[in-house]
């Protein structure tokens, strides 16, 4: 015992073992992440909050405090209320469509068939293709003259040439189009989420349900879906947050048109704050996302906690 104690070298300085201390090392490791969040998320966010209660424009860069005036003005603007409802329709429409496609796709991909691996690889493409490229392709598919969708439907005799839908020109169809494109981008993610959830359901439980007399639908909607709901809800939170704040598809496909039919919060904030230079109103519009998203996330997390099994 004595010999062992003597063989330990005496510390050269009091900092010699500084990196063996959990608190010091932990602080060093976590500091880049904290700095990143503070500088690149925290500071701009606080600036946006201040812009929204100031009269700052690029023509008059004053920091004059105006209170809630900006918020009152945008709330009184019917275009803004339209934008707000568009954002909800765009978000929930594309999420619901994406989830349905995801569930369906996951069920198809669960069954073994020739070429399944290839299909699994290909199905991730909408996720991997740059959004700008994909959107341009979709733009051509929805084009008023060259739409392959219309051509196909005409060829199949479903519609006639004179009454072919003008996908991006009609306000309702334009909204439908951007929803479809966003759902198309989201559904590989939904498939992955559903696949992860469904494969985690124990085979014993499914077998028990089969022996207990549950058919395909009952097994799906009374056993599998409730069991994977928590994991699907997490996916849905991500989907809602990303879609609610997204402006890329709208910007690239419709520029918010026709007549504001597809203008969403992100696009409107960008247009007002950056393009038109009215920074304070743009900030106020963008900040509208915050309470809405907060409520959605809190509701979802509470729901998940309640459903935890």
């Amino acid at each position, binding site marked *: 015992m004595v010999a062992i104690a003597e063989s330990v070298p005496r510390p050269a300085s009091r900092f010699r073992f500084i990196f063996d201390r959990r608190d010091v090392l932990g602080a060093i490791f976590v500091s880049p992440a904290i700095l990143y969040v503070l500088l690149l998320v925290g500071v701009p966010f606080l600036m946006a909050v201040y812009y929204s209660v100031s009269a700052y424009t690029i023509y008059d860069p004053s920091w004059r405090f105006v209170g809630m005036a900006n918020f009152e003005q945008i709330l009184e603007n019917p275009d803004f209320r339209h934008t707000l409802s568009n954002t909800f329709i765009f978000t929930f429409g594309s999420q619901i469509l994406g989830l349905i496609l995801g569930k369906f796709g996951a069920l198809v991909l669960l069954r073994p068939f020739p070429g399944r691996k290839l299909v699994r690889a290909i199905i991730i493409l909408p996720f991997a293709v740059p959004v700008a490229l994909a959107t341009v392709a979709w733009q051509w598919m929805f084009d008023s003259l060259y739409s392959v969708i219309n051509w196909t439907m005409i060829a199949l005799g479903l519609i006639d040439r004179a009454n072919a839908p003008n996908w991006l020109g009609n306000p309702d169809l334009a909204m439908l189009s951007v929803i479809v494109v966003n759902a198309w981008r989201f559904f590989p993610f939904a498939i992955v989420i559903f696949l992860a959830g469904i494969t985690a359901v124990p085979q*014993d439980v499914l077998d028990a*349900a*089969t*022996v207990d*007399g549950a*058919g395909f639908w009952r097994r799906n909607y009374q*056993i599998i879906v409730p*069991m994977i709901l928590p994991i699907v809800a997490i996916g849905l939170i991500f989907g809602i947050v990303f879609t609610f704040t997204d402006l890329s598809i709208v910007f690239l496909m419709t520029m918010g048109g026709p007549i504001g039919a597809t203008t969403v919060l992100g696009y409107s904030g960008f247009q007002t704050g950056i393009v038109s230079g009215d920074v304070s109103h743009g900030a106020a519009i963008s900040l509208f996302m915050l309470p809405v998203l907060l409520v959605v996330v809190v509701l979802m997390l509470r729901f998940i906690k309640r459903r935890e099994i």
Partner: protein
Amino acid sequence: MAAVLTRDIVKKFGEVPAVNGISLTVSDGEFMVLLGPSGCGKTTYLRIICGLEKQTSGDLLIGGDIVNDIPPRARGVAMMFQSYGLYPHFTVRNNIAFPLKTQSVPRAEIDKKVEWASQLLGIGHLLNRRPRQLSGGERQRVALARALVREPTVLLLDEPLSNLDAKLRASARLEIKQFQQRVGITTIYVTHDQVEAMGMGDRIAVIDHGVVRQVGTPTEIYDDPADRFVATFVGTPPMNIVSRNGGYLGFRPENFLPKEMMDDEAFTEFKFRVDRSEYLGSERIVYGAMEGFDPNQVITAKLPPAHVADEWIRPGEWHPFAVRNSALRNFDKDGKRASRH
């Protein structure tokens, strides 16, 4: 209640046969145990009976009717799974009620039957809990209640005790057996544990590589094994098998005793070299080799320690041992029983 009869059931996964022609009759109210090593096809056979797998060929009859093409829910069988397969998002009450809900049983009747099943298994106080809040033994009872609530004609149990600890397993074994006798339901019980099989089964079917090696009462299986596989699979330590005259000679370790312990009955004597001895409290296991046989083959003897003193069994010593002739079993060169006493 119903009898289960299978005729030459074969199940192939690709080219590999998991079940290779099992014909078995389980009579009404019988407790039949399917015993075999893991991967022998016993679980596959059970899944064929309940309809989760479809046999490649062969007929399955439940209550006299061929049910080959009838879906699981219409077969009137209930199955309890190894890890129970409880629905984690349902309360115990809804777990038990689920098989009734799928059959569109009226609500009032569901309540009555859930009440009945939970009383039967003593889980009435757990009805509002979820499976994750239950102990292993409680989960097992819930699974059993769920299996029984439909009043099935046949109960299938797939290694139901393997998830319990050793102590609980012993009491659960007793409970299941008593319960089965009270309800009188035809039961097929799959296990790889010979203690469960011997202790619970009215009859045991020993299965290996997808075929039935022997069907019989626990006594028949133990005392009159049909072949070398059954002889060595059942019993701990397993039966000693030595080759003799182109065939095999088998005897159980507990029948291999010092010569002076023999009574008047006719016996055969062997010289036994003790290599190692284990004292296990209620018994002493002695390992060694016999003179005149393969010296590398380990022969085991199970001795009552009260009759054998420590200093008597010393490694390296040769002792005269003997087996009563009535306890010797002969197998032919293919391992089948050659002659019966």
